């Protein structure tokens, strides 16, 4: 007689979000939850592996922005090999920056054009069969082509710095394994096919204008949809500038008051706590100083433009000033404005890529430096979706003994739950039936945060989403799965 073995949860499954909404007898929403039912286990199976393997191993967490994990792990291991912040050879740090800003450019372009724009350009209630990137091709072939080429440009930058477009090996503890040859550089400055960094800057500016045009016509939706106050957290450069690669940790509240003041992230455990809840595999981080109830925060483009004082590139800074003026300089708490912030960052990334390409330090020969060993290290980076934490302990024999990762999407866990709750209470509450458009609004709220539940999430812009309506007696009244 055979036996049956059930494994639950199924590990390394990409992209399963689940939403539950509970109603009282009158059909009013009493509770809503956004569950993440994936379990990955990287923190466990990296244990015992040699420390220099971490940057290459842990980047397999993701196929969209693996560079973030690659660099966060490398930064943590820099500390372990005694080459912490500021001690890397200049060529190594600039190569890593180029890799990271290339990634930021491709990821932001992917999210806005491939995933988010169908909602805006085709409509929230459009037929789901066309409300996707294929629909965008039908609507505006030129724009769709441009979107693909922008992503390609960013991926080519990653290829030139990491050796592969996805899951390369560039960063190693204490440095980088290659510099940028002049011929590799020149194709981005004066490519015969016209895909130059100047063209990317031009297209990024056009993308901002596209969003602004939509905003002008849909102010109520863009300003009001899933808007709620929150704290905001990100790295900022020591002088307060926007910086995706390195900085100090800063958090502001909904009114702009600093609630975490420019601290060294090596001590992140003193400032950030992680709460677990029984119904989700994703933890709920919070600022310890404000406690579990009030200390939750947002990360990502919206948060970054709320915490930083300025953007250190001229065109993006000009856009930043207009963006800040819209909220009179106060923090922006409107979820859909994340798209606006993301596009300003897209422009900034392109400007920084150009600045780096023109920097002769990228052709330097000193690539690695090591110093005095340390038993542990923390590496933080601003990933496209927000602040990413990597923390490792390493034995004297060079094996990893502990890993703690707080990924960007985890940082946004409470925020996404709040956004879902907003849709439940404002769109669903008191209505007897779930319509497709209603489902899509739940997705639009989650999608603003560009959550990396999975690559599947990104496949065609339609998450495998399950929405369940439960009545006061606990009976499932309606369930929709897609």
């Amino acid at each position, binding site marked *: 007689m055979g036996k049956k073995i059930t494994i639950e949860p199924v590990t390394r499954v990409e992209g399963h979000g689940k939403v539950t909404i509970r109603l009282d007898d009158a059909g009013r929403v009493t509770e809503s939850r956004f569950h993440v039912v994936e379990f990955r286990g990287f923190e466990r199976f990296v244990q*015992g*592996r*040699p420390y*220099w*393997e971490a*940057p*290459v*191993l842990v980047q*397999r967490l993701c196929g969209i922005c693996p560079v973030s994990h690659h660099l966060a792990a490398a930064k943590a291991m820099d500390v372990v*090999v005694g080459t912490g912040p500021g001690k890397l050879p200049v060529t190594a740090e600039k190569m890593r920056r180029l890799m990271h800003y290339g990634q930021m450019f491709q990821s932001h372009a992917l999210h806005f054009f491939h995933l988010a724009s169908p909602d805006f350009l085709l409509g929230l209630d459009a037929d789901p069969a066309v409300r996707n990137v294929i629909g965008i091709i039908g609507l505006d072939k030129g724009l769709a082509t441009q979107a693909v080429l922008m992503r390609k440009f960013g991926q080519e930058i990653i290829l030139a710095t*990491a*050796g*592969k477009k996805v*899951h*390369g*090996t*560039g960063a*190693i*503890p204490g440095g980088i*394994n*290659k510099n940028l040859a002049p011929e590799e550089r020149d194709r981005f400055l004066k490519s015969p096919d016209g895909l130059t960094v100047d063209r990317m800057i031009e297209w990024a500016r056009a993308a901002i204008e596209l969003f602004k045009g939509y905003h002008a016509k849909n102010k109520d939706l863009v300003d009001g949809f899933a808007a709620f106050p929150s704290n905001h957290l990100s790295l900022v450069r020591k002088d307060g500038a926007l910086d995706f690669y390195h900085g100090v940790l800063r958090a502001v509240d909904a009114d702009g008051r600093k609630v975490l003041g420019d601290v060294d992230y090596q001590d992140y455990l003193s400032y950030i706590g992680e709460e677990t809840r029984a119904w989700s595999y994703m933890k709920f981080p919070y600022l310890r100083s404000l406690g579990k109830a009030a200390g939750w925060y947002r990360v990502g483009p919206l948060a970054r433009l709320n915490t930083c004082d300025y953007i250190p590139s001229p065109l993006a800074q000009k856009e930043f000033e207009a963006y800040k003026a819209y909220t009179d300089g106060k923090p922006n708490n409107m979820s859909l404005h994340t798209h606006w912030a993301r596009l300003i960052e897209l422009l900034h990334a392109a400007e920084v890529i150009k600045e780096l390409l023109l920097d002769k330090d990228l052709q330097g020969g000193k690539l*690695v430096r*090591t110093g005095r060993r340390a038993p542990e290290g923390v590496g933080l980076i601003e990933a496209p979706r927000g602040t990413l934490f990597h923390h490792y302990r390493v*034995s004297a*024999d*060079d*094996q990893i003994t502990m890993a703690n990762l707080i990924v960007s999407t985890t940082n946004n866990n409470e925020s996404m739950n709040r956004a879902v709750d907003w849709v439940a209470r404002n769109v669903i509450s008191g209505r007897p039936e779930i319509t497709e458009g209603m489902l899509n609004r739940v997705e639009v709220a989650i999608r603003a945060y560009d959550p990396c539940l999975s690559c599947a999430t990104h496949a065609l812009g339609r998450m495998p989403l399950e929405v369940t309506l439960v009545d006061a007696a606990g009976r499932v009244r309606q369930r929709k799965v897609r």
Partner: protein
Amino acid sequence: MTEIRFTVDGRPCLAKPGQTIVEAAKANGVYIPVLCHYEGLKPAGSCRICTVRVAGRYMAACTQPVTEGMAVENTAPDLEDMRKSLIEMLFVEGNHFCPACEKSGNCELQALGYRYRMLAPRFPYLWPVRTVDAGTPLVLLDRNRCVQCLRCVRGVRAKDGRKIFASVRRGPRVAIEIDHKLAAKLTEEEARRAMDLCPVGAILRKETGFVRPIGRRKFDHTPIGADVEKGIGR
């Protein structure tokens, strides 16, 4: 010295007396895949990747000397499929995760997998529980990736000739052990040689992982055996 005449898949070749089929084939620009074999080490004939057929009999080309008039079958479809199945067996009986292995691109087992177009093994994965020995200063032994080729046992020795690596136990529990006291005295050069000797990522020179960028690795541009076929390996 009289040369010996033999053929590989009907192609006339010449060998020196005492040369094995692998050595003689290589000298004639014919690639016969090897894994446990390493030039300069006494042949072990343990992996059987080099299996050829002579007069209907199967033999390890790395240990079998060439004889006059020998007609060697090297690329018959059934032989090639058998080699491929051996490669697949090696993959399933260990824990070979190429994506995070620093030997990727320089690994002979991976290169053979590519050369033989292995897409997915025909055998079930065994997922053995194996250990990592990081207890020596310069070298790390990752038994998950070991294919028991015994190159390290044969080729890595202390200055007084004692073996630093040894094969212990038998059957599915067979494993490579490292003598910590002797390994502690390995020089930088010896540690690097130990890593280079290992065809897979089981023996690593510590702290140097991924220093060679993608594009400059051994098998990034040409498949394993291409040097022999182009005559470079002669």
